[in-house]
């Protein structure tokens, strides 16, 4: 089917709303990999990630009436938000303990020295983020990719604002260390 320009998303949303056969498959073909990439940033375990991803699709179909078209890319942005919300919902319930885990005795450290990431592929970078502990990873994702403030992160994770800034600093520190080690090993200068 030939869909033209800016109306493509709008029309797809309308077809989803109408419950048309084939609309969901088309949506899946267009956006599944992108949404899976976002979901995997939050949920590492494959089984969990599949469940959350599936739950996100259910939410997208059943709440498509709430979607308002606001220009090109708005359907993808809206669907991404749904995936993030579903991921956070899962983390807040199933991984509650991991989210709250905070090493109190770790000494306060200053901001890490900025690592060089130009030579690192997205896949490797994604893997490094995935390897961070759940609470670090979640805080970093919300900060780096969703542009959330400390306060917003704290609210989303149900922790104190001070804890979220602490989590974030440690997440950045740990990630910077990983990148530096990787660079030392694979891109010695």
């Amino acid at each position, binding site marked *: 089917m030939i869909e033209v320009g800016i109306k493509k998303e709008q029309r797809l949303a309308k077809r989803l709303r109408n419950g048309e056969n084939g609309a969901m498959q088309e949506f899946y073909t267009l956006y*599944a990999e992108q949404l899976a990439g976002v979901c995997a940033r939050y949920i590492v375990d494959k089984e969990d990630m599949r469940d959350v991803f*599936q739950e996100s699709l259910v939410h997208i179909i059943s709440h498509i009436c709430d979607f308002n078209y606001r220009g090109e890319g708005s359907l993808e942005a809206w669907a991404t938000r749904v995936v993030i919300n579903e991921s956070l919902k899962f983390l807040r319930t199933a991984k509650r303990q991991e989210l709250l885990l905070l090493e109190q005795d770790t000494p306060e450290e200053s901001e890490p020295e900025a690592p*060089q990431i130009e030579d690192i592929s997205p896949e490797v970078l994604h893997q490094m983020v995935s390897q961070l502990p759940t609470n670090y990873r979640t805080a970093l994702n919300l900060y780096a990719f969703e542009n959330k403030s400390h306060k917003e992160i704290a609210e989303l994770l149900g922790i104190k604002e001070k804890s979220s800034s602490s989590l974030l600093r440690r997440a950045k520190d740990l990630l910077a260390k990983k990148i530096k080690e990787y660079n030392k090993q694979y891109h010695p200068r």
Partner: protein
Amino acid sequence: MKEQWIQQMQQKLAGYRQPAPEVSWDEIEKALANNRQKAKARMVQLWTRRIAAAVVVLVAVTTGYLALNQQEETITANNVETEVSNKETNPQPKEEKIVAKESVSHKSKMLSVSHKPQVLPTDTLPSEPQPEPEVLQQEEAVPVQLAEDSSASHDEDSRTQIANTSPMPLPLDYPTDVRKPAVSGNRLMAKLYLTNGAMKETEHNIPTEIIYCYESNIILGPDGNPIPDTPTKRLSDYASGAAKSDVYHNLPIRYGLSLRYRLNNRWGIESGLVYSHHRSDIHTSLPTDLKPELHVTANIEQTLSYIGIPVNVSYQLWGSRYGNLYVTAGGMAEKMVKGRLHVEKSEEWEEKTESVSIRPLQFSVNGAIGAEFNLSRWLSIYAEPGVGYYFDNGSSLPTYYRDKPFSFNLNVGLKFNIK
């Protein structure tokens, strides 16, 4: 401000994709069906609650008003009796005095008022004692007379005059006051009725585009039955604003149950529950100039059900013991509770049933003139020809209300005087 390397990371991973996990469409379907059921249950629950709340408020207000009114009646009875007692000292024609005294002293007994009946001087008593059943019969009528007169001036003289016009002894089967309708004592009545639009069915054209833009999701598209060259296009994709559909609205039928409370002799207030059923036939045909091979027609039967709460005020123009004439006016809020579209398409097109909904409430105002005939003291029949105006609630569904905002109707029913 984000660190530069974090920004770089954000850009690097912005378009990151990975193979999507295999999802189970069966599970997704089940979850969706489950969600729909829950949403439906929530809606039903919400409306049941709202209607229940409205009924509770109505009952509370009516009960409160009744209770207040009962008190007023008691007080009025006291006052009248005192007045009468005072007047006893004045010289009055014998017969008049007997009637007035009798009525009031029985009344005081009935309402358990603390005033004891005055002992009359022997010369004011009737020469022959009144038979007991007649006295009892009068008791029924007296409170009404008192209550009604309380709204007007408590003119003792006028009452004695009325009493004077009544033959002695009073007839057994009529209240004391013959000016009033026979049922004037009933303040609360229940109505059971049927309303039908009194206007001829309507038929007119609406753009096909509207048909396809229902909130409802009607899909006239092939869904597996391919249109040549366009396996997944909806039929609506070919329909333009120029295409026409004929909509034929059948007369809506309305069943109602309501309570009417009489505020005084002339004014009454009424509310209850109303169920309306609407059926429309829509015939749509696609324009041949766009895709000649696609000239198909579809017949859609649209049925909508509404539940409404009316509030009306009525004013009695004329009344006798045989019945009365009145005018009534008010408003109503209706909620569409069930909607269904049954689509039958020509040729290779399949049949399909879809549910539809209209979220906003439908508000309307109405006025009618009514004639009521008393069949007995407790039961009467009535007919109310009237007019109604339905406000636009923004629905894109072609409804009788939307297409015929101003309409005539005939309401017939039974009234039960319950108190």
